[in-house]
């Protein structure tokens, strides 16, 4: 499942761009690969992000994965529901499982569109 209207990273994150704001989460492929998520750690509102730097962590029962900032900017909202209900990411990765909202200051030049991400997945999806 790769929604048409989103942008994607090689680390299997998605971005919904609305003006200078981007909502960020992980893709259906990413949640499927991770398995049941049991822990999500996100930055705080007001934190600044720099492209490529670690912004948080998601953990399944077996595995730990880091999240990398896909753009530069400032965190304007985080999905606090994920603290108690990380399973929302598994259940609805592009909806209720969103992770954070960022006011973009730059970066994002290397993002893929849906068709590009789809073929990236078909090629194995290894960053």
């Amino acid at each position, binding site marked *: 499942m790769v929604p048409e209207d989103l942008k994607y990273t090689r680390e299997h994150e998605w971005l919904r761009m609305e003006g200078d704001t981007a909502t960020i989460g992980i893709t259906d492929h990413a949640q499927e690969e991770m*398995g*049941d998520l*049991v*822990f999500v*750690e996100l930055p705080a509102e007001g934190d600044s992000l720099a492209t490529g730097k670690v912004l948080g962590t998601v*953990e*399944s*029962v*077996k595995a730990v994965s880091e999240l990398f900032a896909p753009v530069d900017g400032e965190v304007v909202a985080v999905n606090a529901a994920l603290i108690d209900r990380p399973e929302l990411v*598994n259940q609805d990765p592009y909806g209720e499982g969103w992770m954070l909202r960022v006011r973009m200051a730059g970066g994002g030049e290397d993002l893929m569109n849906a068709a590009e991400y789809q073929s990236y997945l078909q090629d194995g999806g290894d960053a």
Partner: protein
Amino acid sequence: MDPETTLRRTSLHAEHVRHGARLVPFAGWEMPIQYRGVLAEHAAVRASAGLFDVSHMGELEVYGAEAEAFLQEMTPNNVSRLATGQAQYTALLTAEGTFVDDLLIYRLAAGRFLLVVNAANTAGDLAWIRKHIHGEVQVRDLSGEYALLALQGPRAAGILGRFLGKELQDLGSFRFTMEPMDGSTLLISRTGYTGEDGFEIYLPPAMAPSVWQRLMDEGERDGLVPVGLGARDTLRLEAALPLYGQDIDMTRTPLEAGLNFIVKLTKGEFMGREALVRQKEEGVGHRLTGLAVTQRGIARPGYPVRVAGREVGVVTSGTHSPTLGRAIGMAYLPVAHAEPGTKLTVVIRGNEVEAEVVPLPFYRRPPG
């Protein structure tokens, strides 16, 4: 060399694929890590029942007129107390009293024993036994002749009873029975690695797919699901059952691991006894200890454990406990810091996260 081509597959491979398993390399085998998901599979075993393929486990047969005496020398538990039809949890130990492996011994007949060992250790255990073997004793590797299913959970006895057309309520814990089926024989023991009531079924690999399918059909109305190694690990850790290579290994003794019940110092000489007698006299310095993480975060194997800022141990096993809804782990800690209630921290990616010592096991099945 392409690792995919060298991995061994169990006789149930097609069943795993059919049930949508994610298959991963494990101890040289391609094994199911999960089907529907670790949390759902874990919950099914605690609430109703789960069926596991653990055919990767090794089976060694030790037999001969002096087999009992030899195993008595090689293991710390008391083999002479083991009647035909009984199984015993025990270990192979070095002269230093440390683990070569942990295993189950089944007494099949007066002079015939089946040793069920960890997949990754099968070759090493066989070499270890051959190195020490003497007298009228033989050993052979029967791993290729056994598939192994584990049917675990509060509904397991009912499902298996219907499948066999025979009640198994009288089969006690660590007892086994030989059940004829389709011209062959199933060895069924009341054993497991989940902390629930349950059974392990040893059978010819060629029979495994049909037995698997019939058990799945029989158990459908009870909520029986196939369970992978992912949930096997969370289930066994909640029950504080040690995993070789993580919680026990060639640097640790059963006394340090809290497995005193397998050490029978008064039974006579056995490999490692002197070292264990000395350790018992002097007292163990470190003990395998349960931790519960009290802040947000998950303890994982290899994470340091600190008391008052000083490292006192390392997490051997750690995960999110699906039953308890919090992170749990085990670590060898100095006995001074191993008392329940002791406050400590686990270092998770550079951050000290608060935890405390809790009694083991983390989970005990409700009585009845």
